[in-house]
């Protein structure tokens, strides 16, 4: 499009009291060569008259490239929404009028720089043109035919989508189909329920929108959202299907009870909670010798909450044992159930079921550290300490039920993969040794992704493929693939069904978005996409390695190519590329570089540039302004970046060659509990900066001139001091950039 520029400067909210708007305009005009008659100021730009003025210019003069110097881009977005126009905002309210002393030369220069950078941003941005790939498929593949997978399939089908439901066992239903009864899931949490899964199986089998593949596993998943090519394997035969998105509901396995011999597993009449369901299903609670079990002991956390076994809580075992205690009591009025627990965990209203069971005189509950289960003279005894009944007790039982926990289906492969990766850090020989000694477990998705065949689990997440984001539960690092049920977290049947519905929602949403050429969370509105100039690609592979979402594969020659429907628009590839060939229509290396190069660098006095994460650090800076009582150092120019991962090292050269004295990066916390919503942005920026410091050393520029700091959105009260300290360090210890003026 041919751009018709206009620049608007607001004088409201204390801006006119803080700076001389005419002088700001004069400075910006002379610096950017945008003629002065393209600039207008207004007392209240966001008010009806101000907005009408802009709209009149759009209608009358065809203005379509607008720079607005006013409040932060985070505010008044409805008022300054001009469809069909490129709009940039220069923040001269929060970061100037509200956080600087009024009417000083420095404040004036700051406002002028923000306006100049805003104009450059408008010059370098284009309207988005969505990239929509052809031949999109909108079948949802659900892996796992247990209660989670069945629910996801049914919910997606109800919403009108075709589903391919893949179950590796011969029958649908998973563990839920092996239960005698279900624990109460509804108020008043009194009665046990008949298993609900069979109705779902029937419904799924009768639904023409759901194609069911039993005894089938996924041999290969190639492609990207909307264009998955899946190879299914069943009894030695393979079949190709197409899918648009995937729900990963592969479920769980009981923890291997043979590792629990200290709790008596292996002895007659010591069974797991899963085995006990089978016993109960037969109608009578009997021992191996056929005699009725009158005293049944339940040992909670058998393997769970145990550093030697599963360090997590398996969540549903408490209500499962309470339920099984009811089996014991219902089978035989004289029978007694004894539950030995660390803590009874019946969160929420499941507490009501616990209370019901406590009221049953045939159910004995005690907190205990179970030391062991042993057979003495043909009888079973539970040994425990620290109980409510005494410090050391020994209780006889006809039968012992171990409340074994769960292992997510994703754990075996993930554990192996992590082990191999770890060994690989020590060299190829170590890696080969590892793979020889440890056979590769079966994968579930077997993705044809350069970055590995499964959805990466969380660091320290015990193989669960959970979201790292508490407030965004369906975020995985593989776009279009949504985990649900016990592969994410231990959960009950009801919870798994709810979770499955959520995952189905996300699987539907991604199909809708890619059909419109739109990104998905956390930039769901974004119609742009990375568009690399491949003729200049050197196949260095940094983008393929660094992309947090595995969106970039390599062709046979090793040249990277984008699977754009996997992309989340974080710009990490743009930051990684040494050739600077990756660009978005509205965000690119040249844009930020030009903004950096556009600002006035004084010969006297310091100039510092701060690149700030637009979701966390920048809003925190805005809050500094909103508080009004805090001041930001006037030598610093803040530039919002989409994610620190998009920080390209050329910007460092752009800044220092211009004589800038310091460069500060403000990004999110990284490490195990990382807060970056693009997974690794700040961590990658930090890594890249560690490399740039070597370069700076060679240029005899001190490495301390560049610094990356981890801050949160709630660090507003600390930020002014953090920034002040950085500037002061340059001022006191390093002095001006020696390249200044060159």
């Amino acid at each position: 499009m041919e751009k018709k520029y206009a620049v608007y400067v607001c004088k409201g909210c204390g801006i006119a009291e803080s700076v001389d708007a005419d002088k700001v305009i004069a400075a910006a005009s002379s610096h950017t060569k945008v003629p002065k008659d393209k600039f207008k100021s207004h007392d209240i730009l966001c008010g009806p008259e101000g907005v009408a003025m802009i709209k009149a210019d759009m209608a009358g003069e065809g203005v379509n490239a607008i720079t607005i110097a006013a409040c932060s881009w985070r505010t008044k977005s409805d008022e300054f929404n001009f469809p069909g126009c490129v709009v940039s905002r220069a923040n001269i309210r929060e970061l100037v009028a509200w956080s600087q002393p009024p009417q000083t030369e420095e404040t004036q220069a700051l406002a002028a720089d923000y306006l100049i950078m805003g104009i450059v941003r408008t010059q370098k941005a284009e309207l988005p043109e969505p990239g929509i790939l052809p031949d999109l498929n909108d079948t949802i593949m659900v892996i796992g035919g247990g209660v989670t997978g069945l629910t996801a399939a049914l919910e997606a089908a109800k919403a009108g989508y075709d589903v391919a439901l893949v179950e590796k066992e011969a029958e649908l239903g998973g563990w839920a189909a092996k239960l005698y009864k279900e624990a109460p899931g509804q108020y008043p949490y009194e009665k046990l329920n008949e298993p609900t899964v069979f109705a779902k199986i029937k419904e799924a089998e009768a639904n023409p929108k759901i194609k069911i593949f039993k005894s089938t596993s996924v041999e290969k998943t190639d492609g990207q959202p909307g264009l998955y090519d899946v190879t299914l394997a069943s009894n030695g035969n393979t079949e190709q299907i197409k899918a648009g998105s995937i729900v990963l509901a592969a479920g769980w396995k009981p923890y291997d009870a043979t590792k629990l011999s200290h709790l008596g597993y292996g002895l007659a009449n010591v069974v797991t909670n899963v085995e006990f369901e089978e016993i109960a299903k037969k109608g009578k609670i009997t021992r191996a010798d056929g005699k009725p079990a009158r005293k049944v002991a339940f040992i909670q956390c058998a393997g769970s909450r145990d550093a030697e076994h599963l360090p997590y809580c398996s969540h549903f075992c408490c209500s499962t044992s309470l339920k099984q205690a009811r089996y014991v009591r219902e089978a035989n009025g004289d029978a007694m159930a004894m539950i030995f627990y660390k803590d009874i965990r019946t969160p929420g209203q499941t507490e009501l079921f616990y209370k019901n069971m406590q009221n049953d005189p045939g159910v004995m509950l005690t907190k205990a550290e179970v030391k062991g289960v042993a057979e003495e003279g043909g009888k079973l005894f539970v040994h425990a300490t620290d109980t409510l009944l005494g410090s050391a007790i020994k209780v006889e039982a006809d039968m012992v039920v171990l409340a074994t926990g769960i292992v997510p289906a994703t754990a075996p492969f993930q554990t192996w993969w992590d082990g191999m990766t770890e060994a690989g850090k020590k060299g190829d020989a170590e890696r080969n040794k590892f793979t020889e000694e440890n056979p590769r477990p079966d994968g579930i998705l077997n993705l044809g992704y350069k970055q590995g065949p499964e959805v990466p689990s969380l660091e320290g997440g015990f193989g669960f493929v959970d979201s790292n984001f508490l407030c965004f539960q369906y975020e995985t690092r593989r776009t279009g693939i949504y985990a649900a049920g016990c592969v994410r977290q231990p959960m009950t049947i009801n919870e798994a069904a709810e979770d499955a519905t959520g995952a189905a929602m996300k699987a539907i949403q991604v199909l809708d978005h890619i059909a419109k050429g739109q990104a998905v969370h956390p930039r769901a509105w974004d119609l742009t996409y990375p568009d690399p100039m491949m003729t200049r690609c050197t196949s260095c592979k940094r983008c393929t390695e660094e992309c947090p979402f595995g969106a970039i594969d390599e062709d046979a020659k090793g040249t990277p190519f984008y699977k754009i429907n996997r992309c989340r628009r974080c710009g990490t590839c743009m930051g990684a590329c040494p050739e600077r060939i990756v660009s978005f229509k509205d965000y690119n290396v040249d844009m930020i570089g030009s903004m950096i190069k556009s600002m006035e660098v004084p010969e006297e006095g310091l100039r510092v540039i701060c690149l700030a994460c637009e979701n966390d650090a920048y809003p925190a800076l805005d809050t500094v302004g909103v508080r009004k009582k805090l001041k930001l150092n006037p030598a610093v120019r803040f530039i919002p970046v989409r994610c620190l991962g998009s920080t390209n090292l050329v910007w460092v050269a752009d800044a220092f060659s211009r004589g800038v004295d310091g460069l500060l990066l403000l990004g999110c916390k990284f490490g195990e509990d990382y807060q970056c919503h693009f997974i690794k942005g700040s961590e990658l920026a930090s890594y890249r900066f560690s490399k740039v410091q070597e370069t700076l050393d060679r240029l005899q520029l001190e490495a301390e001139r560049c610094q990356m700091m981890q801050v949160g959105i709630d660090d507003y009260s600390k930020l002014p001091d953090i920034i002040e300290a950085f500037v002061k360090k340059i001022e006191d210890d390093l002095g001006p950039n020696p390249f200044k003026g060159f």
Partner: protein
Amino acid sequence: MAEESILVIGGGISGLTVALEAAEAGHDVTIVERNPYLGGRVAQLNKYFPKLCPPLCGLEINYRRVKENGRAKFYTMSEVEKVSAKDGGFDVGIKVNPRYINDKCVACDACAQACPAERSDDFNFGMSKTKAAYLPFEQAFPQRYVIDGKACKGDCGKACEAACKYGAVDLAMKPETVNVKAAAIVVATGWNPYEIAKADNLGFGKVKNVINNVMMERIAAPNGPTEGRILRPSDGKEARKVAFVQCAGSRDENHLPYCSYICCMASLKQVTYLKEQYPDSTATVFYIDIRTPGRYEKFYWKVRDMEGVTLTKGKVAKVEQAAGDDVTVTLEDVLSGKKVQETFDMVVLASGMESALREKPLQLGIKYTGEGLIIPGSLVPGIYAVGSAKSPVDVTKSVQEATGAALKAIYSLAAGGRR
């Protein structure tokens, strides 16, 4: 408003999630929120467990989703006044209470500076004051001031109106009723902290320096009444020896019979606030059972193993004033069988969650438990309930339920309305 829209009652983390997931799938949504801002209860929290990340971070993303998407409309300071089933959908009357500040507001603070009247700050549970013209909190969305009609005496000659250069103050605003048609309704009304003053023995409201867990969040929050310094209310002394009393009202037939789900993790999280601020501080958690389900166990172990942290199993019998505004807690340690009596700088009651609908239930043919929780089986087609309106849950479960409810609401639309 289009006929094919979804009405979400409540703009907290559950309601926002329902609305945004549906909006991002291309559907029109209307949020009705009683507060002057979106974000609900989580906006008041300092950190989320177990990551200890600021809730504002996720809210910032959600606020941006609202702005960028455009399909999720919202009414703040509003409540659903009446609902009737009509033509396979619902006619909904929304009462919009006067904010006395219109959308010309730029959040410049001039009205607050001019305002002579003060009010107790409900966002900080009364631990601070604001002017009658105020911004609920610095990051509030929408970023627009409010005038508290009850606190404004109207005897200052309309100082706020005179101070506002933007024509944003409108003291003549009246409550309005807006009628919308909805094909589906999602109830996401959330929770209030249980009124723990009803438990006489726990001293809340009578014994100085006994606070509840949501107050502790505000005290620890950098935008709270003490700007994040953990100071006890009576004299501003640093609270270095703190007791956390679990199940304050929860798991108690006289109060809330259920477990409030979040309090164990919340107290453990609050122990980390204390330990981070005062490394030599001591924290004692009095509990019945420590409930840290699933992978939360890891967080429990981390806090349990911190120096200066003690966990004692037992139900607190009494909380009393001691000398110098300190607080004495009495209970029986059930494992040792011994009576424990110990004095603290401050006591935090892990008061439970009570359905926000308990006081004023929505009709809609919904059945409730004795504590005002929605019984999901009683919901008629086209109406869904999520989050703590139906059972106490944490943020993760709220988000899971909300995402699923968005889908259910959407296929109510696909069928042309209520099925």
